[in-house]
């Protein structure tokens, strides 16, 4: 059996697609401003000036799409960072803390994990208000823009349990390993054990799972934006673009098709990269 070279063309294709998407998200919106509406140039077909045509308000679709990519990736990555910090911390507590702390913490994590995630996010955004980003959230809003903050908070609250459970499970087996036991016997402090002997083994699998989770977060953000309770105007995400394109979908189906295709491809690519990385990080989980 070949051990190496398992990453097929689909994996590398996905990596290239995601890299292009990232470049697009960074420089795309500065080619033309995505909120610029051109009077009298609504619903144009593709041309040299408007690569993919214009929407019902005369805005360039290409730059709107790149802006949507920027928003979706920003929300996804920021949420994932929150989820990683929370999840790794709580997973470590679950695996290493004394039982009377770890037990309740992990029960709480299991409970949150069982909650259908979009449901909880909808509840949080619904009760806190999707446009209120002031108060304690003000510093965050200043950095991220007020349209994104409530979605990010809601999704971060729902995204961490899967990481926490993963980390707990992995650490629980790792700490039984002989080299960890040996280090402990030699008097290594718990913090040293975690940082030098346990965490370095986890990055691979955490990265793999993060990719799949990132896809889930981007999907949830688009769903909420589609429902009108996610990213708020003037910010645009693929979800809001899909929602707006429904109005003219019979006459201008392409308006609908572009964000749909980009979103689906992104989800697809992230899942593929995640699966490939997981096979690398944990050969035992290899699929049949």
């Amino acid at each position: 059996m070949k051990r190496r070279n398992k990453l097929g063309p689909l994996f590398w294709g996905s990596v290239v697609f995601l890299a292009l998407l990232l470049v697009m998200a960074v420089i795309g919106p500065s080619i033309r401003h995505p909120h610029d509406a051109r009077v009298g140039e609504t619903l144009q077909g593709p041309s040299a000036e408007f690569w993919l045509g214009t929407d019902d308000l005369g805005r360039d679709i290409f730059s709107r799409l790149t802006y949507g990519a920027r928003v979706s990736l920003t929300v996804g990555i920021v949420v994932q960072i929150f989820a990683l910090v929370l999840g790794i911390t709580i997973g470590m507590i679950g695996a290493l803390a004394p039982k009377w702390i770890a037990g309740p913490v992990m029960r709480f994590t299991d409970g949150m994990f069982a909650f259908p995630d979009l449901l909880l996010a909808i509840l949080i955004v619904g009760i806190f208000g999707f446009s209120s980003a002031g108060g304690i959230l003000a510093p965050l809003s200043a950095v991220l823009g007020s349209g994104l903050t409530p979605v990010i908070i809601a999704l971060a609250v729902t995204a961490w349990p899967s990481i926490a459970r993963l980390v707990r499970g992995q650490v629980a087996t790792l700490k039984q390993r002989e080299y960890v036991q040996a280090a402990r016997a030699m008097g290594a402090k718990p913090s040293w054990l975690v940082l030098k002997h346990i965490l370095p083994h986890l990055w691979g699998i955490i990265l793999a799972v993060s990719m799949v989770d990132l896809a889930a977060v981007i999907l949830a953000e688009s769903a909420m934006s589609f429902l009108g309770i996610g990213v708020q105007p003037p910010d645009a995400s693929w979800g809001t673009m899909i929602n707006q394109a429904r109005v003219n979908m019979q006459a201008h189906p392409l308006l609908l098709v572009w964000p749909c295709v980009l979103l689906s491809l992104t989800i697809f690519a992230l899942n593929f990269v995640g699966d490939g990385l997981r096979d690398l990080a944990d050969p035992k989980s290899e699929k049949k």
Partner: protein
Amino acid sequence: MADSQPRLLLQIGKRLAAGFVSLIFLAFVVFMIDEVAPGDAAVVKAGEKATLEQVQRIRVQMGLDRPWFIRFPEYVAKAATGDFGASYQGTQEPVSKILASALPLTLSLAGPAILVAIFMGLTLGTIAAVWRGRWPDRLVLAFSTLGVTVPNFVLAPILVLVFSLQLDALPATWESPLRAPAFYYLLLPVLVLSARPSATLVRLTRASMIDTLGQEFIKLARAKGVGPLRLVLRHGLRNAVLPVITSMGTSFGFLLTGSYIVETFFTMPGMGFQALKAIQKNDTPVLMGCVLLTGLLFIVVNLLVDILQPILDPRIREAQI
């Protein structure tokens, strides 16, 4: 067999207790999110022009000034009797009444959708496993990959574009009163809603079936001259179906949150539609009621799956005591 009966009952009892705990946890999360958020029922009741003292007086009247650990059991006790409070909006209808009118529609959407998903999952998954590596397998895998990666709010407009706008065969939105049998209105939403769970169940069935078909007892059965159809259905599928049942609970969770999107898209006044409407109108009690009831459905289905498992699989029955 006779002495495994009390064990089974004990197991079921444990699962029921766990289900009850998750229910309380759900109520607690919903309650605390509302607690932490700014504003409460007193602010709404007092109206926009009320002074701070007036709001405070109403708050004391309504008992909202007491700490949360006293009000939470009250909230649970009330919810258990079906009292979720009253809507902030319009005629201040009781939330239970709104939920009672929304629930049947959500169930008539989610019920058929999960059945479609189970049927598709088992048949396509089995087909893929039997013809593993050949074109039926490739085709099924391609479809299931699409089903997992294409979100339902992408699938819905595309299907409406084709079936309602181009072919004019099916209605694009729910209407009241309906102008055709409800079946026509439910067809597209159910199809959209079942896509994702179908795809995940297809993959699981395929993997589990490939696993089962590779085992010794299948070889033995084949050697004994069992026909191919009987081999796959009686000997294979019966064993392969168990992990699929386990994952059905999770699939149902996806399906329920999916129904929020599908109902909103097709303007069907089910629970998801009511929840989204409640968000737009800042109608917290209705939103909380919808989320609680959705969560309750989810917990009940998972409980059923958990209870069904040891009954269907003697190995689990023996192993877990």
